[in-house]
């Protein structure tokens, strides 16, 4: 039964591939740098690489979706976690392009750097044809990321205070291990349980790995998850303090922030207490 259904879907997909998507392409276009994506080419790529998880209609309901603990992105609802734009708005073409390029470290979505830049731009445009939102709305205005201030111990301490004041610990835990008191109750927009980011175990974030990426994460929020935007609540300089403090929670990831923090008596004690040593588990995660 399941096989017949799969075959039926494949025939439908073949038929869809045979149809020109120019009608959709007329409404939606996409540009990444100097590249202009082509929806038709993107469709070919989508039905080679993406449909297994994201589904034939892009609704995140691919044949593999039931087996994933974090559901694939629903392109029809067009709610995107990683954006440079304010919460609730559509991402820029570059945001979608970067998500395809980078992948999502904590999910099954891999990095697609094996595809050419043009192919990734083509995919961006095809993805935009899957939701009517792109025909009706424009992408949000990207949040400005001011120049990163000099790293100081005082800045890290202010960031630590903000971490407490904004109650980040409720989800992420006091040591940033993703084990705060609310962690077990969190769900995403698909009503699926979702785990807060574990700073202690990770070196990469869901939406990038640079300080600028981290800045954008809490200034834009991760739409579709409990992670809100703090763009209206904290000032840019405070956001940078928080960035610098959060870096010190990555106790196994060598960074300038961690080195500076460990140079203080308070920081050295906290980092020492946060590090756990034991038998390697094979997961690759250092504690």
């Amino acid at each position, binding site marked *: 039964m399941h*096989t*017949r259904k*799969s*075959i*039926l879907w*494949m*025939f439908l997909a*073949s038929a869809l*591939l045979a149809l020109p998507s120019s009608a959709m392409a007329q409404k939606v276009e996409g540009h990444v740098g100097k590249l202009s994506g*082509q929806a038709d*080419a993107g469709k*070919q790529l989508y*039905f*080679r*690489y993406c*449909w*297994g*998880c994201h589904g034939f209609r892009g609704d995140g309901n*691919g*044949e*593999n979706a039931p*087996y*994933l603990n974090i559901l694939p992105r629903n392109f029809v609802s067009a709610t995107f976690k990683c954006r440079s734009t304010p919460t609730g708005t559509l991402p820029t073409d570059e945001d979608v392009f970067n998500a395809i390029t980078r*992948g*999502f*470290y*904590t*999910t*099954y*979505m*891999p*990095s*697609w*750097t*094996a*595809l*050419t*830049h*043009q*192919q990734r731009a083509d995919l961006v445009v095809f993805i935009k044809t899957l939701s009517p939102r792109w025909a009706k709305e424009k992408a949000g205005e990207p949040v400005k990321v001011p120049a990163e201030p000099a790293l100081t111990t005082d800045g890290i301490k202010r960031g630590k205070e903000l971490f407490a004041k904004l109650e980040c610990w409720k989800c992420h835990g006091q040591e940033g291990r993703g084990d705060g008191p609310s962690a077990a109750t969190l769900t995403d927009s698909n009503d699926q349980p979702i785990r807060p980011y574990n700073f202690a175990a990770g070196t990469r974030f869901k939406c990038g790995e640079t300080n600028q990426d981290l800045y954008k994460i809490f200034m834009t929020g991760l739409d579709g998850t409990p992670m809100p935007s703090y763009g209206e609540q904290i000032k840019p300089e405070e956001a940078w303090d928080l960035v610098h403090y959060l870096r010190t929670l990555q106790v196994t990831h060598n960074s300038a922030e961690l080195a500076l923090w460990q140079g203080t008596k308070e920081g050295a004690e906290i980092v020492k207490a946060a590090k756990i040593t034991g038998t*390697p*588990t*094979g*997961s*690759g*995660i250092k504690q």
Partner: protein
Amino acid sequence: MLQEVLKLKKHRVAAVAFIAVYGWLFLSIAVPSASALPIPKGNVHAIPAFARKYGMPCSSCHEAWPKLSPFGQQFKDSGYQMGNEKDAPIYQNPSYWPVSFRITPHWHREGVDHADITNAVTGDTAEGQLTTHGFDLSGLDILTAGTLAKNISFLLVPSADNAGAFHFESANVRFSNLLGSSWLNIKAGKFELDNIISEKRILGLSNNGGLYQMYHFQPVGENTNLFTFGLGDNQLGAELSGHSKNDHTRFSAALLSSNDGNVSLSNGRGYDTFLTFSQAFEAGSLGLQRVGAFAYIGRAPTFDTAGGSTVANGLGQKSFYRVGFNGLWYIKKFDVMTQYLHGLDNAFLGTATPSYNPLPAGAHSPTWNAGLIEPHYNLNPQFILIGRYELIRMSRQALDANPGNLGDIDAGTVGFRYYPFISSRAGFAFHNEFSVVRQQGVSTSGRDLTSSSVFLGLDFIF
């Protein structure tokens, strides 16, 4: 009398069988329930266990399995890892079992003209056309592969020939991203040579088209009991490899035992070296293009003492090499693989002369050049048209007395593979192929020898 048995009138039977089998396959294709039919084959690698692990369709890693896509190549180069949190087996359901099976039931027809059909009883010597056809099985591959831990991966492929005799096609462990760098990966065991045109990814399955002629070519007159070498064969050794993050730049350097992948040091104590480098570049909307070069430098024995009270294999080693360059060219759905190879065998190998004996008069190290062009048209992930033309031309014979074109080869293959469904669980393809190989001057009487294969297969892997 034997000739009469093999006469052309036999072809009438072959034609009927051919039409019957094609008709059956056509019906199979036309009926959606074809997937329930029995079917498949191969000694090549396509591993649904990976698809099951990551939930991706086979078309992600394979343009048409087993041929890798750039994404699949990157996955392989990364040590069977996507680079995300799901790579380590600790994140898999404990019931997950990284094992796949591949076999190809098929109907095939093999024809050879000018075959030696000497009557062993009467001693009558003759050459004639020899044709066989019928239903058959391929060998079986049991593909087990995955990660043992983050950045430690393995591949174990017990394979059986079509009579069930097992050997290990691959068995290796790979340490990836050493010192946190994608440029530093080490693999040891028996493994596929890191060539961008790999025989383990070949899209042909027939007796003639299921291999690259240039990878196995040895000049006429060599002692293939002592020296058999195939650039397409998996080899035993250790390999250092590296690649850029996007896999555009790749290199490998392997130290291999001179045993052509055979166990128990059957060729003695020699070592070979295989080096590769390739660079990919983007060409706008055409796709990713790649050019590469390779060099295999080895040694092979010229005699052994088998039969004596003490058997010493692999003595009197002499050198040989194969060097060349290749390219993978994409024009959207159309792609072409091209390769040039130059080969040389030491004169002792070329004339099958033990190294303790003097070379015969007029002996040289034989050299040759080979070229390959293999176009594909990938209509969509479910259908691929395959073509291939190879030629091998001797540039210097081992002996002056040999005709200049002795052993030259022309080989052509056409076919298609149709995948009625694509999923992240299993793979299935109707494989249809015709292949012909003509080698000059190698029949018993010195005439050209032409062999052809027709192959209709049901290729499955799960």
